[in-house]
């Protein structure tokens, strides 16, 4: 990798994950940043760089992220950035920034209140503005078309998808679920993510500082993201080449992983991603329940990395986290975290 410095996740927090929050995004961030820093013994004044991830269209307000500066402790002013992407990409920017070598501690966040609008009306606006948005082409439709391709390729079937739903949510019975109506054939209600409001914050530190602050930093040993062409008309939907490239670049094959947290908002996406990443039965996937249990848009990906870091904090050796954006898994990010053993 040519990594000049060790960079590690040293802590993270998430707000309660709810169907509706009554708090503003700024208030959510105010709480969650404090919750991420306090257990490590840090305050906002210790943070050298912040990078926030959020989306104006989810909020329904241009420049909605500006008021979130209230939450980061930007007085005195702070080195800071914002991505109109999931917090997982905010983490990527912070990771790059720490590699520059002059600063040591960064906080990244992802936040969104998707309960305020109807995703089926908002999300067509991220589609091709000439051919797809005017049709109201919605994310569930694209997911269904991808699910059909994944099923046709023998990577999934409706039963295995229902099994993913049951395992992720810890409730329900496969046969009962398969008796439900289709929302978009072959997807039923259980194949879809919930609508969740919430935010997450993560603390990164460079090697020496990380080791001073926590017993088991989760070192980021591989980090890469790739995109594909936009319109699903031009893609093979039974594959995820961008995930494959990102995983190879992140060094997935260098050593076994124990757990994987995949941002699979639809059941078939988990099965496709497992297939593309070549994850065997020995790998524990989405023990957290993943995006099928809690799906705070713009934070869901970052939370995957937090869950992977939790595995290392708790004594694990190596874990993979995945985040995604766009229709039919257009853009994919892979982050590998490890304990210090393979590191030095």
């Amino acid at each position, binding site marked *: 990798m040519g990594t000049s410095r060790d960079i590690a996740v040293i802590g993270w927090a998430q707000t309660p994950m709810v169907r509706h929050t009554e708090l503003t995004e700024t208030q959510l961030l105010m709480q969650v940043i404090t919750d991420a820093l306090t257990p490590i013994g840090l305050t906002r004044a210790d943070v050298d760089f912040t990078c926030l991830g959020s989306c*104006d269209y989810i909020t329904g307000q*241009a420049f909605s992220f500006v008021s979130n500066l209230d939450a980061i402790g930007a007085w005195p002013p*702070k080195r800071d950035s914002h991505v109109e992407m999931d917090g997982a990409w905010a983490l990527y*920017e912070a990771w*790059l920034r720490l590699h*520059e070598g002059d600063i040591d501690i960064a906080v990244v966040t992802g936040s969104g209140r998707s309960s305020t609008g109807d995703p089926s009306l908002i999300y067509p606006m991220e589609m091709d*503005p000439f051919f797809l948005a005017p049709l109201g082409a919605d994310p569930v439709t694209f997911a269904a078309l991808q699910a059909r391709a994944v099923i046709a390729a023998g990577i999934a079937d409706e039963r295995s998808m229902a099994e993913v739903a049951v395992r992720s949510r810890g409730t329900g019975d496969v046969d009962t679920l398969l008796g439900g109506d289709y929302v978009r054939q072959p997807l039923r209600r259980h194949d879809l993510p919930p609508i969740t409001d919430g935010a997450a914050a993560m603390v990164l530190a460079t090697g020496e500082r990380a080791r001073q602050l926590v017993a088991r930093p989760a070192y980021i040993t591989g980090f890469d*993201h790739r995109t594909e062409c936009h319109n699903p008309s031009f893609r093979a939907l039974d594959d995820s080449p961008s995930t494959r490239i990102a995983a190879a670049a992140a060094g997935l094959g260098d050593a076994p992983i124990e757990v994987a947290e995949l941002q699979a908002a639809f059941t078939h996406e988990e099965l496709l991603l497992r297939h593309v990443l070549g994850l065997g039965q020995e790998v524990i996937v989405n023990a957290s329940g993943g995006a099928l249990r809690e799906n705070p848009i713009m934070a869901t990906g970052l939370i995957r990395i937090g869950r992977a870091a939790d595995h290392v904090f708790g004594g694990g050796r190596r874990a993979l986290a995945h985040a995604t954006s766009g229709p039919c898994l*257009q853009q994919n990010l892979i982050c590998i975290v490890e304990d210090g053993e393979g590191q030095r």
Partner: protein
Amino acid sequence: MIPCAVVGVGQTHHKSRRRDVSVGGLVREAVFRALDDAEMTMADIDAVVIGKAPDLFEGVMKPELYLSDALGAVGKPMFRVHTAGSVGGTTAIVAASHVQAGKHRRVLAVAYQKQSEGNAQFALGSGKGASLGAGGAFAPFIRAYIHRSGAPEHIGWKVAVKDRLNALKNPYAHLKIEDISIDKVKASPMMWDPIRFLESCPSSDGACAVVVTDEEGGRTAAAAGRQPAWILATSSRSEPPSFPGRDPVRPAACLQCADDVYRQAGITDPRRQLDMAELYVPFSWHEAIWLEAHRIAEPGEGWRMIDRGETELGGAFPINCSGGVLSSNPIGASGLLRFAEAANQVRGAAGEHQVDGCRTALAMAYGANSQYFSMWVVADRLHPFD
């Protein structure tokens, strides 16, 4: 930190409505100019960073998705930043960070806005009436500056004329007001008292792109006779929107950001060591405000530099030789245009608006209620002050 350089710069012709191109066509116009300038193709690029101001302006949410293939990013990292009006500058900084971190070697930074597709004023008010517009938001800052500096009102008119004269030398500039004059500015309608119409930026469609490479890429370009712009320093600072005592006329975030880039670049006397600056001046008075908040002038002295003609092309400290935001304002790209123009100045590639002997230049962009600041210092060599 790994040294890096700008080896390609491109921009579109900026207009109030580029109805001749689609949004993809617009960004690609800038991208191919930058790639041609760098003697590269899309295949040579490792990663793409895209920046623009609110998605609500054009109604394409998260356009890094729609534009991925338009930008040749398939199979590559594609990154989207948004830091309000400073976003174009942040796009350049994040692209540089991709290289400085040692993770990528040739990064394409692209920023754009196609303001004509929607209505910015409308979007700023989220479709509600009585939107103040940017001028309404900034006019009180200007009133405070005028009051505290004692500047006469013709200072604003002078900057408005100077930047439009510079724009006449820039083939890409939006506003081309051949008969621009103090009288004409003075006679233009009062839009947001104390800001007159001709003291305001236009609303433009446009895009800008730059190619950032590592040291080897910079040296290769130089060896082939293509002068790179070495990036000596980048920095960003943000501060909260409002709290009792906040000063948006001399924002702490601006001062700290400037101090940070100067320190990294080895600049102790910016007035002497910099040869020019591209500052984000959407309303004419911001030139005086920013001269002071970048310590190019002492407090209360910025307007005097303007009055003496020092910030004109050919003056002792030229500002916005390209015509600046006052002449072309595709919002999301306006910051990257500042960074790109500064790079072109030290590359000796600024054409008719080239500052003679320019070797070191500052670029800045700012956003929201004077809260987000991004800056870089570029030079024609890596260690100009050794």
